[in-house]
């Protein structure tokens, strides 16, 4: 079962910030500065948390993971977007 998450972070050190950004690229789509939209099964959420916990400084940094519920079967109503639209990412095999 996949769920949609919004992950935002505030990292105090530029080196750690880059690492967190690179790690987050592996789990979700980069929508805004320090904001990722992730459509993940439970197992990958744990992998993501494990990777982040290892990276950040627990005294200075802050990562917020917001769970928006299951992706399948119903539209995500908790998001209202002004300006540019919010798109849910389609999953399909990539051919380049």
């Amino acid at each position: 079962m996949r769920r949609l998450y919004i992950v935002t972070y505030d990292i105090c050190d530029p080196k750690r910030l880059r690492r967190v950004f690179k790690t987050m690229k592996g789990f979700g789509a980069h929508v805004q500065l320090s904001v990722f939209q992730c459509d993940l099964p439970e197992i990958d959420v744990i992998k993501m948390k494990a990777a982040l916990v290892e990276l950040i400084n627990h005294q200075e940094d802050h990562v917020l993971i917001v769970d928006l519920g299951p992706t399948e079967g119903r539209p995500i109503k908790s998001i209202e977007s002004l300006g540019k639209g919010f798109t849910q990412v389609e999953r399909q095999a990539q051919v380049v």
Partner: protein
Amino acid sequence: MSEEAGDTPLSVTEEPLLPVRMLNEFAYCPRLAYLEWVQSEFADSVDTVEGRFHHRRVDESPKRQPLEDEAPADTETGIHQRSVWLSSERLGLTAKIDLVEGVGTTVAPVDYKRGKRPHVGKGAWEPEQVQLCAQGLVLRDNGYECDGGFLYFVGSRERVAITFDQALIDRTLELIAGMRGMARSGAVPPPLVDSPKCPRCSLVRICLPDEIGWLRQEHADDAQAASTLRRLLPARDDALPLYVQQPGARVKKDGECLKVVDHDEVLAEARLVEVSHLVLFGYVQVSTQAVQELCKREIPISYLSSGGWFYGLTTGLMHKNVELRRRQYAAAMDQRFCLRLASRLVQAKIANCRTILRRNHMAAPATVLQDLKRDLQHAGQAQSLEELLGIEGTAGRRYFAEFRGMLKADGAPPEFDFEGRNRRPPKDPVNALLSLAYAMLTREWTVTLHAVGLDPFLGFYHQSRYGRPALALDLMEEFRPLIADSVVLTAINNGEVQATDFIRRMGSVALTTEGRRRFIETYERRMSQEITHPVFGYQVSYRRILEVQARLFGRYLLGEIPNYPSFTTR
């Protein structure tokens, strides 16, 4: 108290030391222990990943002096030692203990568990108690006094004290003996029946408890009865393949992603957690870092010519399940076994061809359908593989003679006229598409068989063709019409591939890069399509069905189920 366990003769010399963790699995489910210990199967689930995450502190190698130097010398020193690795030759056990605490020579093992403390008697399930007790016994054999230990539940941050009383010690010894007996007997224990333990077991996809349990019974042909089966397989596949066919492109690893670049231009980025397979057409480069990462994650890399011919495969280490391959080699020597299996596969293929014709042909001639039905019966009575090959050939010609009728008259331009099957090289666009689709399916099956631990090159029906993935070709037969032919029909009838997408060279026909890209997308859509499993009655994608069929085939070879359930749709 320590002498009682000490007198029991359990000495094992020939067999490897039994990890105490395995004892936990054995107490949970003997089949799970057999799969992990004897067949070396392993798969991650939410629980194992989370467990590893919580264990990361205790698994770090000890930074302080090892236990032996510290404790016995000075009886007053407190012991607090992480990740202690000890063995007992007498019990034939080896244990990695998360934490050992104590004073002097009196110690207690502490085992970290994910999740919350279960509200059951003694505060823990039996498998955990037994595991802890075995750790205690190993400590005793190494000269410590140990009458109890603790289970620490990370989820609720609770410590549960476990006393090693006589009953628990007896039970532990009994389980050690049971596990040894099981490993020595070489027979895999049957799956649990409708057990609540199965849905959260990490090996459920490998074990297939409900499916195997059902197929072992006599009613294997009554499809209705199975529709009540639990669906233990995940509904959707979380990972998808990545195809790279741009000549000169390079695939690199970038953090947790794969990056496809051409000179300085980024063509695509794919998250590693979402990639199931990397397929490279022609001259595409991969960095060593990417290869290593993919091997580590057990994601295979396939190399194909720019036309789609399958050259080879990079995987991590070979699958550890030797027992399965040994059975496969033995079975391939048995002529009667080969014939029985082959005729079943050919029957399923003819049945599926007939279904595809009935479904897609605007006016399928009744005589052809009848002929195919007769071929199907003949295939069941064939006396040799040669005879079977003849029957299959005849049925194939009948089927392809009607193939044109399944292409939409208005949608398909005259370029898509189809007279009959030809190949090496294909002489018209439809044959070119069919050849590519079969090549893709062969690759898919080769990779799947490799991944479940079978040898794709040793077949049962395709014995005569050397140097080809014979087992992949065998098991693929029944899926040719369902997947490959159906994809070709969809691509042409929906106009996804058009007459302009082909290059003609001296009588042979090939696809352009752009045409192939669209065709691969059609193919992948088909593979993701969910259909009702004809035997088990739940909905799964074709991608997952290939894996299930491969695993069931393995179970058939190991003698767990009486027949290979071939795949036919209605």
